[in-house]
């Protein structure tokens, strides 16, 4: 093996690529060649280093120095300073963590990284990098020292629960599948991460694919299956190709395939792609999709553990659940159970997004409060605005107001508060967000993604959306709120699958916590957050307008008139309330009434 004195990891996740990560990578390689260092410094591509919003970024090992906000032109300076002179190029250090140490990639001390431990640290396209971080040690331990029952017991003791959101104890699921009669048995990894605002699984698949592969192999041993599928959504092409490469490398090393590590255990994996249907995240729909059918759910029971893929016993878990397993086996159930609350053990990844200062991926121990996540890890609300609500659990989750900021983040507490854990999307909203509009947005999503098989979901979500559309258009009537409540209850109790049962949640939770906003829309015909187009008016403040004509030139419908250097006026009858004039005005002269 070739020896390099330094390794540079360049983050190439979609965000960094959009800001020119490949150009930075090319420039870096050119500079290294020009300086004759290309044999001493190895450049690797990876996903996720930690400063998602400050890319393009690179990480230099063994020093563990994290540079961010790079342009191709900066590479000459970095190569000269860091690699020729051996000094840290301070001006490119990641601003929020300008300390050079082990914890660099963890922006705050509140985080604990188990699932994300290798993301950004290793080359995901090289299995040896993973093995160097104790990779496949857990699989070896399981195959040589433990019986399948031991494995299930260990996972049971760790308290690991399904990270896809429902929180069913993982070991229980495994033991059902193990006890189930019928062969062959199948193992599925649900990587159909469809919740808007959630990208935890993508980062794990792109940054540490072998953790998932190893976790699946261990589960397969515990249950007794020899064939597994990873069902990944088509929106994640990089994840799919990284996984396929990882599976190939594992096969070549004898870590997948026949007689793994010389034992009589055999297991192989295949990646299957979705085709853009949200409902395929539901387990029975997902299995229909793998079978090559329309992704429509079916009633349970029979549960997949009894009759799943092709009618055979099937175990299905989420990406994050599998990624936790190797660490539990290696470090022990007690270590894992020492984190979290009484009923929710371990850590959970969240994709923190919305109006918060530091957006990105985080991993925190369960039992942390929402306040700690939003204000300590996330750095508080952007632009010094006020906190209004946090939405957890994706489109089937709920919105929680500031009274719930000190709520412990665990499965039971979130459900009791009217939201849910979900797969880990966490969207923070500031006080300029209209909660009726947000409920309408989520209904639009679930309505569009409803597969149409059962009536409550297909028709019910459409009726709710119609009512919300009417309320937002200023045509809400007395009795609408009661009708929404009744419909929501009926859809929740009568729908076939989780999508329909959860669909009314955004409406129920906003009605519970932000009822006054609905009332303002319906009875006063006002949108308190000034979002709903039909209920607001754009105006130009005569004293602030300088007559620069920027607004008039940008107005898509020509609703703004006025002489150059004269005060401009918006014609409310023509205006479509797109808000472009307010965004482009340099003098804050455009206001919403």
């Amino acid at each position, binding site marked *: 093996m070739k020896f390099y004195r330094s390794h540079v990891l360049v983050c190439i996740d*979609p*965000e960094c*690529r*959009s*800001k020119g990560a490949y150009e930075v990578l090319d420039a870096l390689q050119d500079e290294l060649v020009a300086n004759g260092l290309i044999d001493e410094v190895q450049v690797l591509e990876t996903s996720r280093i930690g400063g*998602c*919003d400050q890319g393009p970024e690179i990480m230099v090992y063994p020093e563990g120095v994290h540079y961010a906000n790079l342009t191709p032109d900066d590479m000459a300076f970095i190569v000269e300073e860091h690699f020729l002179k051996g000094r840290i190029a301070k001006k490119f250090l990641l601003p929020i963590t300008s300390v050079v140490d082990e914890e660099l990639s963890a922006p705050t001390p509140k985080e604990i990284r188990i699932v994300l431990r290798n993301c950004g640290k290793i080359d995901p396209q090289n299995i040896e990098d993973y093995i160097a971080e104790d990779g496949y040690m857990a699989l070896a331990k399981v195959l040589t020292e433990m019986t399948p029952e031991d494995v299930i017991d260990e996972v049971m003791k760790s308290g690991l629960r399904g990270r896809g959101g429902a929180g069913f104890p993982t070991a229980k699921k495994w033991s059902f599948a193990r006890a189930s009669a019928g062969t062959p048995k199948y193992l599925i990894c649900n990587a159909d*991460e*469809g*919740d*808007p*605002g*959630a*990208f935890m699984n*993508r980062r794990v698949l792109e940054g540490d694919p072998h953790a998932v592969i190893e976790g699946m192999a261990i589960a397969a041993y515990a249950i007794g299956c020899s064939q597994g599928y990873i069902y990944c959504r*088509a*929106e*994640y092409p990089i994840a799919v190709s990284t996984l396929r490469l990882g599976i190939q490398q594992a096969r070549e090393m004898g870590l997948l395939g026949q007689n793994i590590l010389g034992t009589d255990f055999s297991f192989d994996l295949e990646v*299957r*792609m*979705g*085709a*853009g*249907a*949200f409902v395929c995240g539901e387990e029975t729909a997902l299995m229909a*999709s*793998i*079978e*090559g*059918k*329309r*992704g*429509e759910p079916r009633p349970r029971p029979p549960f997949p553990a009894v009759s799943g893929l*092709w009618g055979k016993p099937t175990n299905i878990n989420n990406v994050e659940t599998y990624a936790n397993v190797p660490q539990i086996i290696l470090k022990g159930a007690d270590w894992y159970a020492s984190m979290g609350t009484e009923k929710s053990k371990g850590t959970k990844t969240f*994709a923190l*997004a*919305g*109006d918060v200062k530091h*957006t*990105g991926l985080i991993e925190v121990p369960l039992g942390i409060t929402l306040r700690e996540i939003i204000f300590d890890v996330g750095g508080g609300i952007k632009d010094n605005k006020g906190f209004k609500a946090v*939405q957890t659990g994706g489109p089937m989750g709920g919105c929680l107001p500031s009274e719930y900021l000190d709520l412990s983040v665990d499965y039971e507490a979130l459900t009791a508060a009217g939201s849910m854990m979900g797969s880990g*999307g966490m*969207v923070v*909203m500031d006080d300029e*967000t209209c909660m009726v509009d*947000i409920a309408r*947005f989520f209904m639009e*999503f679930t309505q569009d993604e409803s*597969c149409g098989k059962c009536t409550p979901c297909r028709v019910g979500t459409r009726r709710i959306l119609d009512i919300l559309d009417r309320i937002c258009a200023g045509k809400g009537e007395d009795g609408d709120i009661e009708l929404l409540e009744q419909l929501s209850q009926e859809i929740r109790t009568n729908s076939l699958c989780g999508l329909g049962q959860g669909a009314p949640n955004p409406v129920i939770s906003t009605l519970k916590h932000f009822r006054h906003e609905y009332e303002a829309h319906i009875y006063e015909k006002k949108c308190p957050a000034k979002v709903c187009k039909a209920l607001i008016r754009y105006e130009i403040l005569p004293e602030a307008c300088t007559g620069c004509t920027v607004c008039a030139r*940008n107005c*898509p*419908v020509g609703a703004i008139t006025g002489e150059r250097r004269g005060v401009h006026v918006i014609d409310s009858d023509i205006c*479509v309330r*797109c*808000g*472009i004039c307010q*965004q*482009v005005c340099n003098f804050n002269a455009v206001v919403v009434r």
Partner: protein
Amino acid sequence: MVKNTTKIPENDPLNNPEIVADIDTIINANRYLPGATMVVLNELQNKIGYITEPMQQYVANKLHVPVSQVHGVVSFYSFFTTKPRGKHTIKFCMGTACYVGGTPQLIEKAKQVLGVDVGETTPDGEITLEVCRCVGACSQAPVVVVDDSVHGRVRPNKFPQVIRSIQTKQNQ
């Protein structure tokens, strides 16, 4: 076996022997896979860009599954299209963060600039406008995806630049 009875329109890809060879390669590589329908259709969509009704019948015949099953799959999943798209696609991310971050205003601007609505293609066959689900680049909201590249923090006044980036790509 179901015979292909409908007349194949002149401009259908099935009339192009090269494309038929591509289709056959894809089908033959996957035909013995359990649940092959999805795999084949996914690859056809990637390779050819759309799956017409005659193509669906062709796939069904070759895979020995009912045409209804193939058509059912094509019409169920949003990734499959039955009509050709423009040379370039601009997708507006409708994830929560992007929606809150101003995707609706952006679409308004795009309609004004290109003169077509979402789901339509410009008359010159160059650009198709679409909305898509969250692409997972939420900290960059609002996001548009041009072909395969992600553009972040696109404000309405920056949208013409996005279109220019397509035009420069063509000139290269």
